[in-house]
């Protein structure tokens, strides 16, 4: 990825270790000379002599709309969020000059309860951007397989079998998912940060 060479492309879902990127966040669009349409950078292998434009009007438009769509069901309350100042959404907004608020879309947030059941961390579905990184590490790195995506469309969410609170699931509370979450959906409880 371009990141190694100091070029920033917005991304939420791309995981270097994953062989088949989920390409679910739709924020890493770039234009490549010779290809008719913008493509997601995370699914595109680099090749010799490839000319990539990371900022074009088409790319900017796609990213702006994709970003606003993500915010439209996000419980935006940065001041009260554990990830404030350390959040990928904030970073993208800063890098691309986007606003952390809705201008064209209607908010679709519902007040969902925060799952406080695990001892060391908590899970706020209202702040999840469905990037899938937690699900990936839970399956492929820790090999626990406690969490996954359930349902579909607007009700899609990360949950355990039977949608029980995480503390009652097979979750071992290893905390790996919390470490990869790019936003304030999975966060450690106060005294467990950094352990």
């Amino acid at each position, binding site marked *: 990825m371009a990141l190694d060479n100091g070029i920033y492309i917005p991304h939420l879902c791309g995981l270097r270790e994953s062989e088949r990127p989920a390409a679910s966040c739709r924020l890493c669009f770039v234009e490549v000379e010779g290809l008719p349409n913008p493509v997601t950078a995370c699914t595109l292998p680099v090749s010799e002599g490839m000319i990539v434009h990371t900022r074009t009007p088409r790319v900017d438009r796609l990213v702006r709309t994709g970003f606003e769509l993500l915010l439209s069901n996000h419980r935006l309350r940065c001041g009260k969020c554990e990830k404030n100042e350390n959040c990928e959404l904030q970073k993208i907004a800063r890098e691309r000059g986007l606003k952390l608020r809705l201008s064209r879309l209607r908010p679709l947030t519902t007040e969902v309860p925060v799952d406080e059941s695990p001892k060391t961390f908590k899970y706020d579905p209202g702040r999840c951007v469905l990037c899938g990184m937690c699900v990936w590490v839970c399956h492929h790195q820790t090999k626990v*397989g406690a969490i*996954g*995506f359930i349902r*579909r469309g607007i009700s899609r969410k990360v949950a355990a*079998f039977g949608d029980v609170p995480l503390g009652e699931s*097979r979750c071992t509370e290893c905390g790996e998912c919390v470490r990869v979450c790019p936003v304030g959906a999975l966060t450690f409880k106060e005294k467990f940060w950094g352990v």
Partner: protein
Amino acid sequence: MELQGGEAEMIYAEVEGVLQRHGLEREKLIPILQDVQSKLGYLPKEAMQQISEALRIPEVDVYSVGTFYNQFRLNPPGKHQIKVCMGTACHMMGGHIILESFERRLGIKEGETTPDREFSLERVACVGCCALAPVVVVDEKVEAKVSPIRVDGILLAFEIESKKSGEIEKLVEEEGRTQ
């Protein structure tokens, strides 16, 4: 959902049979779930756990597939099945209010079944009689222009019916005793 007497054994045996027929590859997950549902009428948690063990995949992955597709139901069909139309016309005419009334009255959410398994509640897409919106299909019967009051009426009718049949049973029993 609480299982009833003997149900656990029945589920186990049926799932075993389906698994044997399909083999234990992950690619067979959807056909396996379809077969289990057609045998049992729904996908009990116990069945999904059994399948996940047999296919050696995390149980949440089976649950993920089971909750993604509309064709799968996670709760047993009730004795009476209530389907609230959420098609465009019914939606415009307040279908969600009707759904909410049922949810409140039955104490369950859409997609669930009452603990006594008398009623199951689901939302369906246009049932083809939009002029009668909002429409509810109760068992096979179409209820037209349903209002929250009508919701009470529909459920009351079932209550009376089941009370009556209960009384008749009692009468028959008593008769049997006196003879």
